[in-house]
C-alpha cells in the first residue's frame, strides 16, 4: 500500500491541497488502488505547494506544485504503483530532501515539520520528540536554565533578548503562581514560521513550554494564538488534549510529580497584542494596550505574577537544545547570534517559503540562493527585513550576514526573520507612507508619539508625495521619527521610523520632489 502525503498546512490548503488530496483519493478508488493519504505539515517550500510526497523504501519523493487536474496524469504516470523515483512527470522533483532548498538548510527546530501527521504523537516520539523533555525531567530547574543560557538562545520574537536571563529571572521569583505565556500572535506581514510550526509539529511547542515550566516553576502555560490562524488553534487544542491524555500535561507531568497545564487563548485581531505587555493585558481580558516597564513581565506579568513570555520559535527551539545539549546548539551561528533562525521569504520572490539556517547566512544567500531572486524577473530593488517595522536594505547591503549585531550596526534588524522582497517597480515614498499608515492602523493609542505621530507622519508623507514643501516636510518627518524612536512607549511606535528612515536614506530620489513625477526613477512613480 502506498502512502501519499498531501499537506494540510494552511498555505498549502490555500493553493488547493485539499482538492488535490480529494482528487487522489477519488482517483485511487476509481482505479481500485489501495493507498493511504496522510495529511502532513508543510515542508516550508511554499512555491512547490501543494507538494505531494510518496514514501518509498524509506525515502520521500516530491511532486509539486500539483494541481487537482494533474492528479489523473500523475496516476497515469505511475503514482501509487511505480517506484516514485522512476515516474516521469514534469512535476516530479525527486527525493524531497535532495531538493536544494531543503538540503541546504540547517533544520533543528523545523526538522520534523512536514514529515508526519501533526497530531501523531507516536511519530513525534519516533522522530526525536520528547527526548529533550525526558532529559529535562531528570534535570534540576537550575540545570535547565543554565543549559538554555549556555545555548545562547535569544528571543525569536524580534527583540533577541537572551532567553537564559529571562528564564532565570522568572525562576528566581518566589512562589508557584507563575505563567509561561507563548506569544503566537504572529502579526508581522510576510511571516508564517510560527504558524507553520504549530500546524506541522505542535508537540514541539508544547514540549518546549513544559520544559520552560519545569525550569521556572510555573504550573500554567498559555498560548496566545491569533484568531487569523484557525487551523493552528484547532491543531494546538487537539495536541494539548493528546499530550494531557498521554500524561505529559496535567497534575503529574511525565510522572515527575510536577504540574503543568496549557490552554490556548485566541487573540482578537490586534497587531499590538503581539507586543508582550499588550498580550498580557489581552490575556487578562482587558483592552490590548501596552504596559509601561518596569516592572518587566518576568517579575510582574500576567495577573501581576512572574511570567515568562517567549515567542513560539524560542520555545520550540528548547526541546532540541535539551536533547542535543547547549554546546551543539551554540555551534550554529556566529558572534552573539547562536543557533538557527527561521527566515521567511516573501514578497516579490521566486521561491517563497521557510529557510531555517544558522545565523550568519547573508541576505544575498537567502534572497538569491534560496529565493531565486524576484518573482517578476525584474531587478531587485530592496527588501524589508524583520516585518513591517523593520528597515529596508538595498542591493549594496545584500552581503550583510544575518546576525543581530551586524544588522543593527547597518541600521537594520532581523526581527522575527521575515524578508519581503521588492523589485525596481517599488515606490519607496509610498512604502514610507505605508509604515506610518500601518502604525496608525495598529497603534493601541496609549502613547502620544504613536497615537498621533503615526497619523501626522502619514499626512506629512502625503504632502511630500504631492510635492508640497518637500524639504521642510522631510525635516519634519525626521523630527517625528526622532520623537517616535525616543519617546514611544513600545516598539510599535519606536520602530516605525526604521522603515521610514531607511527608505529616505537609501532611496532619497524617491522623495526628491517637487515634481516627483520627473525625478522619480521608475514607472511606479508615474501614478503620482
Amino acid at each position: 500500500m502506498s502512502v501519499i502525503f498531501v499537506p494540510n498546512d494552511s498555505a498549502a490548503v490555500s493553493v488547493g491541497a485539499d482538492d488535490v488530496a480529494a482528487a487522489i483519493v477519488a482517483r485511487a478508488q476509481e482505479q481500485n488502488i489501495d493507498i493511504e493519504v496522510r495529511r502532513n505539515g508543510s515542508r516550508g517550500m511554499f512555491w512547490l505547494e501543494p507538494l505531494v510526497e510518496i514514501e518509498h523504501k524509506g525515502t520521500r519523493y516530491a511532486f509539486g506544485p500539483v494541481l487537482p487536474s494533474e492528479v489523473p496524469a500523475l496516476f497515469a504516470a505511475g503514482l501509487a504503483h511505480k517506484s516514485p523515483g522512476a515516474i516521469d512527470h514534469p512535476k516530479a522533483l525527486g527525493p524531497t530532501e535532495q531538493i536544494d532548498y531543503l538540503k541546504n538548510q540547517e533544520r533543528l527546530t523545523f526538522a520534523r515539520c512536514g514529515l508526519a501527521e501533526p497530531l501523531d504523537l507516536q511519530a513525534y516520539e519516533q522522530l526525536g520528540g520528547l527526548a529533550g523533555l525526558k532529559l529535562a525531567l531528570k534535570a534540576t530547574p537550575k540545570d535547565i536554565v543554565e543549559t538554555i543560557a549556555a545555548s545562547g538562545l535569544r528571543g525569536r520574537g524580534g527583540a533577541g533578548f537572551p532567553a537564559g536571563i529571562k528564564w532565570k529571572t522568572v525562576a528566581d521569583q518566589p512562589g508557584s503562581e507563575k505563567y509561561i505565556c507563548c506569544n503566537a500572535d504572529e502579526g508581522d506581514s510576510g511571516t508564517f514560521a510560527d504558524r507553520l510550526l504549530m500546524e506541522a509539529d505542535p508537540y514541539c511547542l508544547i514540549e518546549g513550554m513544559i520544559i520552560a515550566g519545569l525550569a521556572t516553576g510555573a504550573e500554567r502555560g498559555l498560548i496566545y494564538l491569533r484568531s487569523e490562524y484557525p487551523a493552528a488553534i484547532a491543531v494546538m487544542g487537539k495536541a494539548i488534549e493528546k499530550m494531557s491524555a498521554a500524561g505529559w500535561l496535567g497534575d503529574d507531568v511525565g510522572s515527575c510529580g510536577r504540574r503543568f497545564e496549557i490552554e490556548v487563548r485566541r487573540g482578537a485581531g490586534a497587531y499590538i497584542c503581539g507586543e508582550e505587555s499588550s498580550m498580557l493585558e489581552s490575556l487578562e481580558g482587558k483592552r490590548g494596550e501596552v504596559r509601561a516597564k518596569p516592572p518587566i513581565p518576568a517579575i510582574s506579568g500576567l495577573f501581576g505574577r512572574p511570567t515568562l513570555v517567549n515567542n513560539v520559535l524560542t520555545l520550540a527551539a528548547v526541546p532540541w537544545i535539551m536533547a542535543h545539549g547547549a554546546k551543539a546548539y551554540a555551534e550554529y551561528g556566529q558572534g552573539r547570534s547562536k543557533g538557527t533562525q527561521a527566515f521567511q521569504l516573501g514578497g516579490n520572490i521566486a521561491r517563497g517559503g521557510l529557510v531555517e539556517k544558522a545565523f550568519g547566512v547573508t541576505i544575498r544567500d537567502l534572497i538569491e540562493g534560496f529565493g531565486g531572486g524576484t518573482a517578476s524577473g525584474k531587478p531587485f530593488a530592496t527588501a524589508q527585513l524583520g516585518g513591517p517595522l523593520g528597515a529596508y536594505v538595498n542591493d549594496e547591503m545584500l552581503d550583510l550576514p544575518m546576525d543581530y549585531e551586524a544588522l543593527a550596526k547597518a541600521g537594520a534588524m532581523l526581527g522575527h526573520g521575515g524578508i519581503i522582497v521588492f523589485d525596481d517597480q517599488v515606490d519607496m515614498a509610498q512604502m514610507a507612507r505605508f509604515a506610518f499608515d500601518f502604525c496608525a492602523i495598529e497603534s493601541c493609542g496609549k502613547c502620544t508619539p504613536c497615537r498621533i505621530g503615526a497619523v501626522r507622519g502619514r499626512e506629512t508623507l502625503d504632502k511630500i508625495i504631492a510635492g508640497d514643501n518637500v524639504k521642510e516636510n522631510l525635516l519634519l518627518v525626521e523630527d517625528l521619527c526622532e520623537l517616535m524612536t525616543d519617546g514611544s512607549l513600545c516598539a510599535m511606535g519606536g520602530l516605525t521610523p526604521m522603515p521610514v528612515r531607511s527608505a529616505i536614506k537609501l532611496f532619497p530620489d524617491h522623495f526628491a520632489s517637487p515634481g516627483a513625477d520627473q525625478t522619480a526613477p521608475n514607472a511606479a512613480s508615474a501614478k503620482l
Partner: protein
Amino acid sequence: MNSIRQADFGTPASKKAAEITLTVDGFDITVVAGTSVMRAAALLDRPIPKLCATDTLEPFGSCRMCLVEIEGVKGTPASCTTPVTEGMKIVTQSPRLEKLRRGVMELYISDHPLDCLTCAANGDCELQDMAGVVGLRDVRYGMDGANHFDEASRVPVDNSNPYFQFDSTKCIACSRCIRACEEVQGTFALTMQGRGFASMISAGTSLDDFFSSECVSCGACVAVCPTATLEETAIVVHGVPTRSVETTCAYCGVGCSFEAELKGDTLVRMTPSKSGGANEGHSCVKGRFAFGYASHKDRITAPMIRQNTTDPWQPVSWDEAIGFAAKRLKAIQAEHGIAAIGGVTSSRCTNEEVYAVQKMIRAAFGNNNVDTCARVCHSPTGYGLKQTFGTSAGTQDFKSVEQTDVMVLIGANPTDGHPVFASRMKKAMRAGARLIVVDPRRIDLVRSPHIEATHHIPLMPGTNVAVMNALAHVIVTEGLVDEDFVATRCEGADFGRWRQFVAGSENSPEALAEVIGVEAETLRAAARLFARAKNGSIYYGLGVTEHSQGSTMVMAMANLAMATGNIGRPGVGINPLRGQNNVQGACDMGSFPHELPGYRHVSDAVARALFEKDWGLKLDPEPGLRIPNMFAAAIDGSFRGIFIQGEDLAQSDPNTQHVTEALAAMDCVIVQDLFLNETARFAHVFLPGTAFLEKDGTFTNAERRLNRVRPVMKEATGLSEWEIVCRLASAMGYEMSWPDAAAIMDEIARLTPSFSRVSHGRLDTEGSMQWPVNDAAPDGTPTMHVGGFVRGKGRFMLTRYVPTTERTTRRYPLILTTGRILSQYNVGAQTRRTDNVRWHEEDVLEIHPHDAELRGIASGQRLSLASRKGATTLTALISERMPQGVVYTTFHHPVSGANVVTTENSDWATNCPEYKVTAVEVRPANEPSSWQIEHEQRHPGTLAIADPAQ
C-alpha cells in the same frame, strides 16, 4: 481639574520603607524605595512636565512628556514609570529633552481646538500650562489634518449629567478618567473605545451617555481630567473660582475634606482634598456636587413665630423670636414643672453647636431632657461597645481597611450610604481582601465589577444575633479562638461563661439555619474564613442597630472580634459606619439624657462637679427623657415644650402618627433648621439655621476624626447657631456666651478628658485628629484598644437570640426593611433640593419577582404597603436583589411615608427603633393611602408664611 491649591507630585507616595539616595540635576535627595523619578524630582521642587500622571493614580506612562535622561541608561525613559535606584543620576532638562517634549506637545496641539480664551478650562488646564512650559510656538503639521474637533469630526458634548459635561473634542486620551474610575472609585464605568487615533473615552457602552452608564457621579474623573474634557457644569457657567477654603462635607459619617472653591460668595465647586484624612482626595456625588440646597429658594433665613400651628408663619426679628420662645418655655415650666421641656440635638451640626444646645438644656432648662438623633441610629453602638470595650466608638481609622484580610460587612450598604469608604473597601478587595456580606439584600458589594464577596449571608431581617451566635459557635467548637488574646486581654470568667453559652447546641449553625434562612455550611465557611484571617475586621451599619436586639448584636460582634483576637492593631476592629456627618460628635458632646460630654454618667458626682464648677450652677443628677419618652409624655400632657436642633422628627422617627400626635400636643415646638420641614408643621417658633458652608467648628466622623468646618461665607441668617442658642439660654435666665466657636472647643477640651489636647488652633495647623487627643495621645488615636481596652480587660457578654415580636402573620406575610440610596441623603431635605433627584425621583418598593407574581404586581405599578401601624403607597420595583419574603424601600421623600408603616418596637437597651423589621402586606393600589391624602391636605396650611403686608 482638581483644585489648583493642591500640589501634585505626579505619582503616589510609595509605602515602602527602605531609603534610596539619588541625584536630580546634581542635587542629592533621599526618598523611599518605590518612589518614581518624577516624584523625587517634584519633592525637590524640580517638577517635570507631565500630562497623564497625577499623584492620586498609579503611573501610566502614556503622555511621554516626562521623559528624562538617566546616566548610564539608554534612551529617555519616562520619569513617572521609572522607580528610583540607589545612586541614580537624573537630568530633568536638556536640549534633547526640550526638543522631545516640544515634539510631543506639537502632536497634542495638532489635534486640539485652539479656543483657549473661550474654553471653560482657561486658566485651569494642564495642557495649556504644559504647552507654556515646553515653549510650543508652532504646529508644523498644521491644523487641517485628521482631528477630533472640526465640524466634520466632532462628537457633540455629552451634557446628560447635571453636574459635569464631557466634551471629547478637548480629550487628550490620557486615560486619567478611566484610571480614576477604576483605581479610586472602583466602578469601572469608563472605558477606552477604539484604538490608535480613534481612541475615545466612553461611559458604558457606545449606546450610553454618562447619565445612562454605570457612572455614579463621584467626580473622580472630573477631578483628574487635565483639560476641559470633563468639566464641572458650574465652571462652564460661572468660570474658574478665585478663592478656596478647606472644610468638611456635611453629609454622611465618612467626613470627607473638601476645598470649597468660590468667587465672592458664589460656591462654584467642591473638590476633594488630598490631605483629607478620611477621603484622601476622593468624594461622592453628594459631597462633591449636591451642595446647591444651601442656597435653595426654600431656605428660610429670617426667624418666624406663630401662636398656633394653624396660623401662617410671621417673620420677626431675632429678639422677638427668642423672647417669644423663652416666654413660652418658661410658662410651661412654671405651670408643669422644670421637666416639662427638653430638646434634641442634631448630628448634622458641629460639635460646638451641639455642645451649646445640651449645655442650654442642662443649665438653662435645668434638666437632662436632652437626646439626639443617634437615638434612632447608633445608640446601640454606644451601649454595646461601652459594655464590652469601655468606649462608645469605632476602633479603627478608615485607612485600616488597607491592611485587612477578611472583612465582615453587616447591615450596611456602603456603596450607597458611605460611598467614599466603599471605594476603599473595593480597593482592598481588588488587592486580595475577602469579604463576607451579612445582609438580606444582594447589595452591590456582593458582586460588582472586579470584586465579589466570598460569602453572602442573606439572613431574614431580625436574625442578626442568631448569625453571630452561629459564627461564634463554630469558632469556639472548632478550636478557632485566639486563646492568647483572650487570656491576656479579656476577663476570664466572662469569657468562660460566653464560651459555654455559644458552644451550646442551640447556637450551632445547624440549629439556627432555618431561623436565619441560610444554610449551615455557608455559616460555617464564613466563620472559618473570618477566624483564620490574619487580620479580620467587622464593619456595620444600621442593619445592626435598628433592631429590638440592636445592643445585643453590637455586643455579639464585639465578642466575635475579641474571640478571634481582632482588636488593637491596624486591619482589624469593630467599625460602625456612622450615618450622619457628626453623629459620633453629637454623642461625644453629651447629647444623651444620662451622659455628660465624654460619656460620663450624670449620676457621676465627680464628673458633674467639674461641670457645675465651670458652669456655675447645680446639675440634675437624674437622667432625663429619651426621645420616645418625650413623645409618650407629650401625649400624656406632662411634656409640653421642645427645642429641636436640625432634625426632622416627623419624617425620620418611626410610627409617624404617634410622633405627629405627640408634636401636636405640645405648647411650644421650636425648630432650628434650614427648611420648613415636616416637623415645622407642628412648630411655633422657627429659628433659621446655618448651612455647613457658614459654620465654624468641627465635625467628628465615624473614625473619631475631628475635622475642621470652616466658614466659607457669612451666615445667611446673620447669626451662628450656637449664638442663637446662647441668646435663648440667656433669655431663659442662664447667661451663656462665648467669643467664638474656638472658645467652645476650648471649654469642651477643658471639661472632657478625651479631648483635652484638642483646639481649633491645633486642628488648623496640624490637621485632623482622632480622639482620644490627650496627654497620653497628644496627636490622637487612629487605632483604639492597642495593648489594652479602655475599660481594662475586654468583657464578653452573653448574647442570647430573642426573636423580635414583630413577626409575619397571615395578614402581614412580608418583612419590610429600609435603607438608603446613593444619590439621596436620609430624609432628603438637602438632596431633594439638588439635581440629585434626577437619579431618584421617588422612593420605590423593591420586591422579589416571586412575591410580586403572587400578588399580580409589575414593576412601575402603584401598590399599597400596609402594616399594623399604617399604610402608604409606593411604586413597585421587581428586583432579584431581594430575597423572597422581604421587601425594601428608602425614606428620602416625605410623601412616601415609610415611617407611617414602621412600628414603635425598639432596642431593649437604648430604645433605638426597630426600623429594619416590619411585618407588612403589599397589594396593587390605585389611590394614595389615607395618610397620604391627609398629608397632602395639611401641606399648604401648616407651612404657609404670612405676607409681610398682613
